[in-house]
């Protein structure tokens, strides 16, 4: 799977990798980020 040119939904977690950190990876790999969310289950 090549991220370049893809539209990415970044679903992060507070105690994992947060949404914006996932989104930054996607962006820097050449993808367009279309949604960034961070879940917090507590």
């Amino acid at each position, binding site marked *: 799977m090549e991220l370049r040119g893809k539209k990415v939904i970044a679903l*992060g977690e*507070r*105690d*994992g*990798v*947060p*949404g*914006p*950190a996932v989104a*930054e990876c996607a962006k820097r790999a050449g993808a367009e980020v279309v949604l*960034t*969310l*961070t879940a*917090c*289950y*507590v």
Partner: protein
Amino acid sequence: MPVIRAVSLVLAHVPSLVRLGSKPLRVLREVEQPIEYLRPHLRDWNAARAYAPNQVFIGNVGVDELAARPTPWHRHPIAGAQRFGPDGEIMPEDEFLGLLATCDGFDLLALTGEVADRARSTLDAHPVVGRESGRPAVPAGVGTAVLNERIARHRAVPLVGVDGRLLGAMLPGHEEDDTLTGQVLLENLACKATAALALRHLLARPGAIAATDVRYVINCGEEAVGDRYQRGGGNVAKAVAEWAGCARATGSDVKAFCSGPMHALMLAGALVRSAMFDDVVVVAGGSLAKLGMKFQGHVKHAMPIVEDVLAGFAVHVARDDGVSPVLRLDAIGRHEVASGSAPLAVMKALYSEPLERVGLTLLDVDRFSLELHNPEATEPAGSGNVPLNNYRTLASLAVVEKLITREGIDDFVRTRGMPGFSPTQGHIASAIPYLGHARRGLTEGGLTRTMFAGKGSLFLGRMTQLPDGLSLVLERNGARPSTA
């Protein structure tokens, strides 16, 4: 430097109110008798009192003792568990309902005659919030017919006991204001009552200051108290101070999701340090909305719903008395805007940077208090072991900083961390429940330095993608040569 003079931590066991938690309310909307559905999983007070994590919360059992106990904790009750502990108490529901009513200055919460009478007689004899504490009296009960009329015609929220009987009803504060519904006001009242209980416990400690010597109260509970024109208007601090008899105090609310308490403690310390006030109290009440948050996991695993308690705490921040643990204002860890969301930058900002600033490393901290959510509440619902995850991330930071090796991660977590023992009460579970233990360890015990860090999920409010966080170092008084 300011010191932490006293700490109180309280729980109120409220199985009947689990039904009114946000998750149970939404999930059981289609269920005709939600209390019947929940009943097999609701614990009585004896079980909640003997539950090891709750005994750690009020200070009767140490964190290492908990780590050594057999699991699951709900199957291994503590024999002879006490209601009161060095840090507070576990209040039973019938008394707490009365306490709620004493906190309601608008006669919106009505209890049945039987419930009100029982609450009055037990609460009046309470050692901390008894008759002579000066609190408002438990109001007379109301007939069932009137309560039913309020529920049917005036949108009052019924309070239904675990046995299915009507206990009371909460009226809205305004017919058309969505921020003053019976449900919202009950949440706010529960927050006020648990904070008020914690504050009275704090003021009942041997050597505590008089209520009238408290000059400023900061509330950091998460409830938004207000009306439709200012949803989170505030000010719970003032309401709690009034109830507790702090006649010369003023106060305000500090909010930052679950990192609110850390901000509040820092600000309290700064107010004392600046000599603006000699005695500042930080309080927070519990979150009714979070009761039963993971109940589906508990039902699925045929275990008791352990999110059946509201929590509250109070902390007295004062001028250096030469004895109490010092709150090091020169070592505050701050998640700054530029810290962003990258875990490494966030962890450095909260832990290594503030320690480095005062010439210390992670290895100079005996114990870290991070997110302390009880894994027995979260794991059955697939939400993992939050404290363990957070401690492992901290240990990994120590690896990055070359303080330990990768093989040392488990040992770091075991010796400098602790098992989660807090009810999932958001801002309270975030580092706060270890405060009582830390205070004892830093005065009578063998601790030299502890670090507290709270994390706030600001992104949940949709105004920023950023998280928040703040950390504090508490140190044995006189531990370093120059306590300015």
